[in-house]
């Protein structure tokens, strides 16, 4: 077993620093280590054992163990293992060694940990505020258990502004966002432009916090959360829905009935179909090819309709409850689904055969937004971005869940590492999804779709689940708790990692390529921002628009000179 083998390796190397381990036998491994050894253990896992970094989680465990808790998650994709390295920190001194220098991909997660739980990462290379709004006071950490979910903290200063770094010499600052035609959601990139070239950027996002995790930990109950989780994202909602349910099931040791697993697989793949078609359309729109955008949406529409018939809504399927799914698939619907897939396959084949030879589109996408294997490893990039760089990685195969063990499919990869390769990967994955759904429909047996739960879920157990969203791996981590709700629930959406790679992807590129490079990771800011601060009243948007205006006013004056010195 991979889990025992890794544990043995860790034991040999670190000996007494490894306190205890938990092997639930469902492809996960929890290792509790000394806080002092955490950096070395993570480095060993990441560099020597070549694990993929997933996420870091901070939790306020004081009401239960009088301690704080930190978990770093890694994945061994080839060995089908998710590994969590946990450590406890004293309640009066929540400080831990930063791993970001060894594992650059942990940069955001550690900053988020500081913002929200107040766990300081000592030696972090860039300890700037990430998640909390600018108006938020320093010492209040909303995910701590002593902060009520609906409180407005003292010291909230709506006039406080975000301190941006100084731009490099000779560069003009171009504010990109928070509102921009190619951003469907607010996010701010402060681009440093020299002529038409992007020399660097600073990201300020997390403008759509909705406090979903805090709500889940303090107000909602186990079965309320799936429909909330679904609203983390407008496109891959079902992924979060399933991932949450699976994380709780893993923690509680439940297994959903086979028919429910098949239904989950079908809906996840339907979601991937519509998401990939949507993405191809949006990418075309970004490069100004609106006709193909419209055609993608036309081909996508029947998928939305069949999803609406199956689940009652075209996008928010409301699919899962703990231990199963809510609606069954009737035989009429499954034959209709088969027909929809046939038409889709035919139409998409004709579009793909035309697009894959279209040099006009290739001109805008080849060699653009490069994210090579090294960047994928360092920043923990996932999904089509990683696969387009030739990294053979797919959670559906590597960490099988739902019914993916029982179906055959190929993992599509490409070698270009550029936007064009991502187009190819996504366009081809559509056919694999169709294949998966057909197999599910053929091999599904009648049966119950929900577990008959007896007794409550035991508190204090941990579970994690990785689900391959259309954009990459969605990772959910749950600690079960009292009062019919989890103690801690952490969502790591794929964009959370992929977005961290964007500054490297757009560096030294033309400004025109910025939008398509950003678009190529299929960014989903709501997913990334999902979190914590509930406060709709803090007037965050107002602060930002002021800031924006000031940026514009400042950049106007110094932008005129470089604009005339553009190299052709």
């Amino acid at each position, binding site marked *: 077993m991979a889990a025992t083998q890794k544990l043995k390796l860790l034991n040999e190397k670190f000996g007494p620093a490894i306190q205890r381990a938990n092997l639930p036998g469902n492809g996960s491994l929890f290792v509790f280590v000394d806080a002092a050894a955490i950096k070395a253990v993570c480095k060993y896992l990441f560099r020597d054992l070549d694990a993929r970094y997933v996420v870091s989680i901070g939790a306020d465990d004081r009401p239960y163990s009088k301690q704080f808790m930190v978990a770093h998650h890694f994945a061994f994709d080839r060995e089908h293992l998710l590994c969590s390295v946990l450590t406890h920190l004293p309640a009066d001194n929540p400080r831990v060694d930063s791993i970001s220098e060894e594992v650059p991909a942990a940069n955001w997660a550690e900053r988020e940990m500081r913002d929200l739980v107040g766990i300081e990462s000592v030696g972090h290379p860039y300890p700037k505020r990430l998640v909390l709004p600018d108006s938020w006071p320093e010492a209040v950490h909303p995910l701590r258990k002593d902060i009520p979910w609906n409180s407005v903290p003292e010291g909230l200063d709506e006039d406080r502004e975000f301190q941006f770094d100084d731009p490099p010499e000779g560069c003009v600052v171009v504010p990109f966002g928070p509102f921009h035609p190619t951003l469907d959601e607010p996010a701010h990139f402060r681009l440093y432009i020299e002529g038409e070239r992007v020399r660097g950027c600073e990201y300020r996002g997390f403008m759509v916090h909705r406090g979903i995790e805090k709500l889940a930990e303090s107000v909602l109950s186990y*079965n309320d959360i799936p429909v909330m989780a679904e609203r983390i994202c407008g496109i891959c909602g079902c992924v979060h829905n399933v991932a949450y349910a699976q994380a709780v099931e893993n923690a509680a040791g439940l297994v959903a009935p086979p028919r429910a697993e098949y239904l989950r697989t079908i809906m996840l793949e339907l979601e991937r179909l519509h998401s990939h078609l949507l993405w191809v359309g949006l990418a075309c729109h970004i490069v100004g090819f609106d006709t193909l955008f419209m*055609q993608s949406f*036309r081909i996508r529409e029947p998928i939305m309709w069949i999803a*609406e*018939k199956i689940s*009652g809504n075209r996008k928010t399927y409301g699919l899962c409850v703990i231990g199963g799914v809510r609606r069954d698939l009737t035989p009429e619907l499954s034959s209709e689904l088969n027909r929809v897939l046939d038409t889709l396959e035919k139409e998409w084949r*004709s*579009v793909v055969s035309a697009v894959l030879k279209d040099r006009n589109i290739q001109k805008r996408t080849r060699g653009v937004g490069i994210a090579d294997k090294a960047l994928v490893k360092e920043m923990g990039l996932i999904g089509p971005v990683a696969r387009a760089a030739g990294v053979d990685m797919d959670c559906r195969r590597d960490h099988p869940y739902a019914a993916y063990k029982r179906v055959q499919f190929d993992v599509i990869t490409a070698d270009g590492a550029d936007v064009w390769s991502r187009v190819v990967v996504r366009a081809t994955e559509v056919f694999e999804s169709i294949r998966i759904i057909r197999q599910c429909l053929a091999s599904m047996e009648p049966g119950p779709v929900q577990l008959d*739960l007896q007794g409550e879920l035991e508190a204090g157990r941990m579970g994690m689940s990785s689900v391959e969203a259309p954009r990459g791996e969605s990772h959910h981590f749950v600690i079960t708790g009292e009062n019919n709700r989890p103690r801690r629930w952490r969502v790591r959406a794929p964009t959370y990692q992929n977005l961290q790679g964007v500054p490297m992807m757009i560096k030294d590129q033309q400004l025109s390529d910025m939008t398509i490079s950003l678009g190529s990771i299929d960014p989903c800011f709501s997913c990334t921002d999902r979190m914590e601060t509930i406060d709709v009243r803090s007037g965050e948007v107002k602060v930002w628009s002021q800031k924006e205006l000031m940026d514009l006013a400042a950049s106007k004056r110094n932008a005129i000179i470089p604009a005339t010195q553009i190299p052709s």
Partner: protein
Amino acid sequence: MSLTSKIKETLVCLRAGRVTLPYPAQARPVPAGFRGRPIFDASKCIGCAGCANNCPAREILVFDVCQEIRILKYLGRRCTYCGRCADVCPEKAITMSSEFETATNNIADMGQRLELFMSTCQRCGRCFKEPSVLEQLKLKGYRIDDLQNERWVFGSKAYIGNEPVVDDIKIDLD
């Protein structure tokens, strides 16, 4: 400029014909089983408040005026039409209708208010067994949500008191 690709693309476009509808004038019919705006049927409702306990958006309020009269108020402001209320309703008094064009200038239009006459169960006061353990909030006795401010109050009371409850943070189970 790969001309064949362009021609193929144009053919794909032209073969499809016109597919959009002149929407407000002509709409696509809603399929069976669509989850639209929930409609509450007062004649079927037994006032168990299962819907109120399981609404993820906390949009269904329950207020016990006295021993015999229970008010069930559906606000519908931030209802996500998830249909959990209809799932747990033991009497099928809630149907997810096909209404989805619910834009309004007055948010109160979205609400529904049921005044229910309750006979008392001799053993527990209010009775309803929820379908699974995960749906049970262990709320017994009387619920007094804040109808005036339209806020859900997490808790219940053994007796109907006179003082209104406004603090919706306080969690007092049993």
